[in-house]
C-alpha cells in the first residue's frame, strides 16, 4: 500500500510537466452500465463505453461511483492488471463524475463474471477513538491538497476524509498560526465526447468554503482564511493518482506559521 503511494510520488515528481501529460490516459463521457455481479457487499461492476474508440472499460474502482440515471465523465488510465472480473479491461486509477445529463438506466446480468470482493481501500480512516501517531517535525509551511468530483464541492468518502485526517494530524502537531484554504475550479471549457465541459467558477469558492468549514470543525480556534482561483492548472501531487484533471479540481490547505 505504502509502496504504491511512493511509486506514484516518484513517477509524477520526475518532471514538472508530467502532470499535464495525458498520453496513455482516457477521458470520455458515457452512460454507465451496471453489471449485477455478486461477490458480497459493494461488489457490483460499473462499465462505460467510449463512443469514439468503441472500447468498453471497467470503471468500478472510482472513489466516487456512477449513478445509473446519469452520464458520467470518465477519466483514467488503463490498468496494468490484465484480469477482467467485470468483463472489460479496468481503468485504474479512475474517476467517474456524475453529470447532469440523464441516461436510460441499464443493468446487465453478471453473465458469469465474478465482480470484485470488497476490500477496504488504502485511503480509509481509523475510528475517532484510535490515537493518530504524531508526525515528526521540523514543521514548516506546508500545503495539503484535497480533490473533488467534477463541478462539485462534496468531500469524497474514503479519499478526502483520509487526506484531511492526515492533514489535521500534522496541523495539530505543527501548530501553525493560520490556515489559508484556496479552492480551484477547472473553468476552461473542453470538449469531451462531443460535450463541452467546464466547471462553474462558483465551484472554486464552494470548495474553499466547504473545506474551511470542515477545518473549523476539526480544528476549532485556528484562524482559517479562504481564497479561490478559476482556470485551475494541473499539479503533480501524488494523491491525484497521476490524473491531471483530478488534480485541477482541488482545494489546498496551506498551513502558515
Amino acid at each position, binding site marked *: 500500500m505504502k509502496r504504491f503511494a511512493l511509486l506514484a510520488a516518484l513517477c509524477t515528481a520526475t518532471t514538472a510537466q508530467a502532470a499535464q501529460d495525458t498520453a496513455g490516459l482516457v477521458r470520455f463521457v458515457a452512460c454507465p452500465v451496471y453489471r449485477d455481479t455478486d461477490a458480497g457487499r459493494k461488489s457490483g461492476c460499473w462499465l462505460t463505453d467510449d463512443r469514439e474508440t468503441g472500447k468498453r472499460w471497467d470503471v468500478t474502482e472510482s472513489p466516487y461511483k456512477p449513478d445509473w440515471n446519469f452520464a458520467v465523465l470518465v477519466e483514467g488510465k488503463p490498468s496494468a492488471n490484465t484480469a477482467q472480473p467485470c468483463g472489460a479491461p479496468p481503468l485504474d486509477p479512475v474517476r467517474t463524475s456524475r453529470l447532469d445529463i440523464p441516461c436510460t438506466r441499464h443493468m446487465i446480468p453478471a453473465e458469469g463474471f465474478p465482480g470484485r470482493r470488497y476490500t477496504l481501500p488504502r485511503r480509509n480512516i481509523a475510528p475517532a477513538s484510535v490515537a493518530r501517531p504524531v508526525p515528526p517535525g521540523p514543521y514548516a509551511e506546508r500545503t495539503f491538497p484535497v480533490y473533488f468530483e467534477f463541478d462539485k464541492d462534496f468531500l469524497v468518502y474514503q479519499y478526502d*476524509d483520509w487526506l484531511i485526517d492526515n492533514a489535521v494530524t500534522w496541523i495539530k502537531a505543527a501548530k501553525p498560526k493560520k490556515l489559508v484554504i484556496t479552492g480551484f475550479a477547472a473553468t476552461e471549457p473542453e470538449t469531451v465526447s462531443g460535450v463541452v465541459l467546464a466547471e462553474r467558477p462558483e465551484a472554486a469558492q464552494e470548495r474553499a468554503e466547504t473545506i474551511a468549514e470542515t477545518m473549523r470543525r476539526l480544528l476549532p480556534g485556528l484562524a482559517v482564511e479562504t481564497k479561490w482561483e478559476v482556470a485551475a492548472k494541473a499539479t503533480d501531487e501524488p494523491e491525484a493518482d497521476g490524473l491531471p484533471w483530478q488534480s485541477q479540481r482541488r482545494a489546498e490547505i496551506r498551513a502558515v506559521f
Partner: protein
Amino acid sequence: MHFLPQRSLALPLAALVLTLAVGARGGDVPDRWWAPGEGRVLPAVLDYENANGTLRTLTVGGPLKTAGHPFFEPLGKDGRACVTCHQPADAMGLSVESARRQWERTKGKDPLFAAYDGSNCPTLPQAKRESHSLLLDRGLIRIERPWPAKSFNGKPIKPDFTIEVVRDPNGCNSGPNYGPEAGKISVYRRPRPVANMKYLLAVGFPFDPKQGYALPLDPDDGKPQSGNLMADNRAGNLRIQMDDAAATHLQMLKALSPAQRKQLQDFELRIYTAMQVTKAGGAVDSGGAKAGPARLRDSEPGALGSIGEPVWSEFKGWENISADEAAKLTPEQLTFRQSVARGARVFREKMFLITDTAGINSRIGFGNPVRNSCVFCHNMSQMGNDVAPGQVDLGTTTLPFADPWDDLPLFKVTCTGRPHPHYGKVIYTYDPGFGLTSGKCADVGKITLQSMRGLSSRAPYFSNGLAKDLRGVVDYYERRYFIGYTEQEKQDLVNLMSAL
C-alpha cells in the same frame, strides 16, 4: 394504581398483555402505564411483558424515586410528563396499543391526548376519537416545525426549496395559523425510545460522509455531535432536545431550570432497555447467546460492526446448538433459537441492490445502485443504528415509495437549485424529514435511523408508523428493493427483530 376493567373487544391482545403486566413486587401490581406525577419508584430492574416475551429496563444506580423528577412530573399546563410518551413498558417509546388502551381507560381524558400534539390538530373537536386518529391508529404525535427551516442549533437557514401544501386532511397545514405561509409545518411522527442513549450519542468517526463535512460541533461543549437524534436531527444534543420537548410536548411556559436539565440528562444516560426473554426461545442471554439489556449497558458504544463485533453476533451462540444444549430445550425453543441466529446472518449477509436512496446512493460515492445488506445502514454493534449520522431516505415518507395514506398531509417540494438526485425537481412527501433541518432539497425525505432495541414493545415502526408490525417492516424492504427473501428468511428476520 389499579387497572380499570378492559371493555374493548377490539383489543383482545391488549387485554391479554394487560393481565400479564409485571410490576414491583408485593401488594397491588401497579399498572403498566406510568402516569405523570404518580411518585412511583423506578426499580433498578423492571420487566414488562409484550406479545413476544419480556422487555427488561435497567436503571443504572437505581432504584430511582420519581417523585419530583422532571422526567416523571407534569411540568406544563397539559399535565403531561416526558414519561407520558416515553413509557417503560414500551421500551421508553410509545406503542399504538398503549395509546389506544389509555383512550379506553380514560375515555380520551389522558393528558397524552392533549390538543397541542396528541390530536390531529388543535382546531378539531377534541372529544371525538377521530380527532385523535393519527395517534390512535398510527401512534403519531404532531410535530410543528418552523418554516423557513431552522438548523439544529436554531440558526435560520435559507432553504434551496419551496414548499406547498397539496392536501391538508387535518387542518394543521392551512388557515390563518398553520401551514408554511403561517411559518409552521405540521408533520406526524412516532416517539423515539429514550434509552440506550450512549449509543445514539457515540461518535465513531470525525466526518459525516453523507453530508460531506466534518461532524458539526456541539454548541454547549464544543465536541463533535453524533447526529443521531430525532427523525430530522433538529436536536444535536440532549439539552437542545429536552428544551424542544418541554416547550412543545409539555407546553411548558418557563424554560427548564439548569437543575432539571441535569436531572433529565443524567436519567437519559442511565436507562437501558432490550428484550430479556423471548416467549418462544427463552432468555436471550442463555445457551450461548449474549443479548439483553445488561450487555448493552456494559458495552462500549459507537463501534462499526464491519470492523469489530458483527451486528447481532450476540446470537452467534444459537447458530450451532450442541446436542447437549438442545436436549435441554423444547423443540419449539430450539427452532426459534435457530431461526433468530439465522435472522442475524440474513440481516448481515443477504445482499440486495439499494437504489435511489439519498444518503446512500447519493451524494456519498457508493454508486446507484449499490449491493449490500440490512447491516450497511444499520451498522453499529449492539444497537443497529448508523455509526455515521444516520439520515437516509428510505422512501417511508415520500412518494412513490411511501404507502398511499389519505390521512397524512401531503407537501409539494420544489427544488430551486440543483434538482434532487433521485426525485428530480419536484418531490411529494408526507414529511420532508431532515430537509426541514438542513434546508437542502437533497435531504428531503431523509429520516434518522433509530435504535433497533425493544422493537417488540413499540409497534408500529418507521417514523410515520408505516409498518404496523415487524413483518410489515420486512415487507416494506422487500417492496422497496425487490430483495427476494424466502418465506423462511422473512420469518427469521422477524424472529431476530422480536428478540432485540
